[in-house]
């Protein structure tokens, strides 16, 4: 199953620095095992631009579409056997502690 893993900031991170996983090791391991297809880090929301078309008119505005304290800072595209495997992959990501991760399966449009 494919999951989009949103990497988010969190207002209540776990500040314990012991045994914090290394992101490069995490990427290398999951790439090697075929569980991570791609992923990247996003620029801050101050760099975001929101685009809408309403009644045929293009509306472009500065900033993210929703102003929140918790924001998406990156993403990883995972390919796992099931949710349990995706949870195992997510828990080993450093941002599981410093922020939070959301696992979103892709919609099954064939069903």
């Amino acid at each position, binding site marked *: *199953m494919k*999951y989009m893993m949103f990497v988010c900031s969190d207002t209540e991170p776990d500040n314990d620095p012991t045994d914090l996983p290394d992101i490069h090791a995490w990427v290398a391991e999951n790439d090697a095992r075929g569980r991570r297809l791609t992923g990247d880090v996003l620029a801050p929301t101050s760099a975001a631009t929101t685009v809408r078309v309403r009644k045929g008119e293009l509306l472009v505005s500065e900033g993210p579409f929703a102003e929140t304290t918790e924001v998406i800072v990156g993403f990883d595209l995972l390919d*796992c*056997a*099931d*949710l*349990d495997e*995706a*949870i*195992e992959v997510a828990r080993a990501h450093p941002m599981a502690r410093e922020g939070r991760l959301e*696992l979103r*399966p892709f919609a*099954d449009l064939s069903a």
Partner: protein
Amino acid sequence: MRPPAPVGAVAAASAGAARAVGDASVEAYPRIVATLIRVTGDWALAEDCAQEALAVALERWPADGVPANPGGWLLTVARNRALDVLRRATVERRKLHDLALLTPPDGQPEAAAPEDVVDDRLRLIFTCCHPALAIEARVALTLRTVCGVPTGDIARLLLVSESTMTRRLTRARTRIAQAGIPYRVPSGPALTERLPGVLAVLYLLFTRGYVVDGEPAFADEAVRLARLLDRLMPKQSEVAALLALFLFQHSRRDARRDAAGNLLTLERQDRARWDRAAIAEGLGALDRVRHDGPYAWQARIAACHATASSADATDWPAIARAYDALMGIRPSPVIALNRAVAHGYAYGPHAGLSLLDAAQAGGGLDGNPLAVAVRADLVARQGDRLWAAALFREAAAAVDSTVERRALLDRAAELTR
């Protein structure tokens, strides 16, 4: 309450058959549902077919007699029903093929299973109790799918409308498929991590049945489920501890109320009405516990009460030690309160009061009438009857339940008599 026994041979035979259906469903229902889910992957279909098999049994067994292997009979009927439905829907050949090959067990299903074959029912329980499902969805799904409780009954006893419960169950089944929740028992360290979540669902099932002013709702299901889990996972001693805890508490179900239906505290219950068989089974389970988890300590405390010949003969120092240990591993205001009670009985009201002061200092017991009642009891035993009576009245004014209020006012009246 059991219905009165029917009179006449026909009525007796049909009552016997109905009981046989009931007995078989306890064992067979979750097995049938679990097996059909494994083969078809369709939760609703599995539940419907298992339910229909029970209905067919209720119709046929009174006339035809109870079959030699009731579980196998039910699985065959349920499987055939599933085959019909799938044929009509003409789904993938693979599922039909697997279903057709599915032969019901011949009397000795569990003993025949090799070590590495995981019981389908265990898979079902772990999936229903997956942490990615909301807790109320886990409770509802476990009751419906593992215990076979009709949706309408679950709705009524959990105080929601039937349509709400139907939606909640449908959403949970859809979520299992969409989120990719596996139909599997976790292994290794994952099992150790996941088991407490499963036990928490069982505990919730059990305690939901103990609401004040209400009768036990799902306690029987929780006991049965704990027994099944204990049999399927004999090496997990926290499961045995939970089963023991359930059995000790459940052993008092007939003694908890007086003739008028008022709740009785432990020391006022008629111990002759405690279920000795349940206590013996609980002690047997507790005997296999080889660790010091939270359920183990709670079970040991319950065992002290269950084995005491009278309230005065209770081993309070042992209970006080167990609460000390519980405070160490799972501190909470309620544990702190119970610890004060235990120390009060073990070492005198002064010891209890100083622990109660400490427990209330944290603020977690503010506005808790039980804490006021505990203080009242300790003060009464110190000899200050008027102050104790005033505290009992204060507690009575703060409780929601009329039954409890009456009991507290009775205590106040006794002290000022």
